[in-house]
């Protein structure tokens, strides 16, 4: 049985909801079961946002995960919240552009990736989320990277369809990252 779960977290505006939707969409398109559940900070705009995605060959029971098998961490408040909760066998994808290495728990398996810097190099500063998702796919083998790229067609709104190739490039950059 294939089973993966991941919590993705960052500031509002960093695009964690988008990559969560993308992963669930890709899982569905691969014929698997998937759930996506968002948690918004109730307090304010620009606060933290996180979502939980489960991709599974069996029907998904709990969409709520407290000890995730993986996390994608885009900012320091999210690291502080979710690093202690990462499953002992889990892996965290941590945004090295915004988080100092000294914050990492050496006991946790970590892919420390400068997602914002890599996105800037692609000329697409908003696509740090895609870079991080690419690194997650590489680290977990959750789905084929091609499936995630294909799912961009349904997840990116038609208004931004012209940006799909750039999103795919950012995914690939993260997928090919060697830490």
């Amino acid at each position, binding site marked *: 049985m294939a089973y993966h779960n991941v919590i993705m977290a960052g500031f509002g505006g960093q695009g964690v909801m988008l990559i969560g939707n993308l992963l*669930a969409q890709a899982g*569905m398109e691969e014929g698997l079961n*998937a*759930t*996506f559940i968002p948690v918004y900070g109730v307090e304010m705009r620009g606060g933290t946002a996180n979502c939980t995605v489960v991709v599974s060959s069996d029907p998904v029971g*709990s*969409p*709520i995960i*407290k*000890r995730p098998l993986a996390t994608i961490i885009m900012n320091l408040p999210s690291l502080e919240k979710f690093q202690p909760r990462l499953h002992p066998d889990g892996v965290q994808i941590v945004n090295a552009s915004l988080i100092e290495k000294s914050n990492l728990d050496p006991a946790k398996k970590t892919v420390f990736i400068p997602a914002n810097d890599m996105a800037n190099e692609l000329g697409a500063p908003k696509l740090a989320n895609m870079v991080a998702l690419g690194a997650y796919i590489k680290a977990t083998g959750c789905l084929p990277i091609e499936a995630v790229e294909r799912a961009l067609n349904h997840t990116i709104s038609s208004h931004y369809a012209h940006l799909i190739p750039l999103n795919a490039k950012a995914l690939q950059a993260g997928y090919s990252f060697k830490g």
Partner: protein
Amino acid sequence: MSDERILIKGNEAVAYAAVSAGCKCFFGYPITPQNEIPEVLSKILPESGGEFVQAESEVGSANMLLGAGACGVRAMTSTSGPGIDLMQEGISYMIGSQIPAVIVNMSRGGPGLGSIDASQADYFQATRGGSHGAGRTFVFAPSTCQECYDMVQDAFDIAFKYRTPVLVLGDAIIGQLKEPVLRHAPRNKQDDKAEGWRVEGMGDRAPRLLKSVYLEDGALAARNEMLEAKYKAMRADIRVETIDTEDADLVVVAFGSMGRIARSAVQLAREAGHKVGLFRPQTLFPFPSEQLEELAKQGKRFLVIEQNAGQMLDDVRLAIRHYADADFFGVMPGIFVDAEELLTPILERMGGAK
């Protein structure tokens, strides 16, 4: 209609299902966590030839719903707990007047304004009639986005079959969760058979009166006897999902979003070598009492898990009372729990971790 699965929220599934089932009128007033239902319907219902009305309040919604139902039209409203409070008068009159309607409650935490987070504390309100005068509504409890879709479709058939308001009781988790949903035409759509009673303009026929007031000697007693007989007849449409109950020593009973989280917990318990099963009522009224009693006769033990302080627990105890009692684990409204947190109380009742 496409056979392709689409990734949508439970709320969105409710909206698409309503249109596919031939819903022609929606009346509602905004409240979180169900706002995607009117959001989607405000677009797709007019496109399909229906009417979308944002009412001035939930009191207005319920009475507009009564009016549409009285005309024999497939109509729906959606809200969350506090809105259901305001609709109770209209719901009682619909029950008393035998007017079909579909009412969706994506419930939230209470009492009072509570919070927008998950809660199952509207179980009593949903299953005990909610309003004055002993009226009951048929109650579906979806656990997945696909069930949101399928049950809303079926809710319209049930509403016309029994000429009754039907409540679909979800919560913030089911409403906000996205899952693949297969949109399909109604699989077994029933004829509404409304020609004989609806008030659509009398023309040459004899006048009709849909009413809930019965003042003549003995008339109200007869009315109540008829309604009670109808509630009994509804038992033909009871639904329940059971998983691994055959050889189970302990049967976990849970509904809605807690039902699916409990399913994962039961699976973890099985993997740890414990004989645990799941009994998930998909209809809360009528309640699958006979099915539970059958399991009790076999000597099984029961653990009810709900996101409230113990409400369905009463129905479970009534069902199994001649053979067993039920234990309870409650999760307070407003928090999220995962499968591991539900596994702990299960293992405690199985003598601890192996």
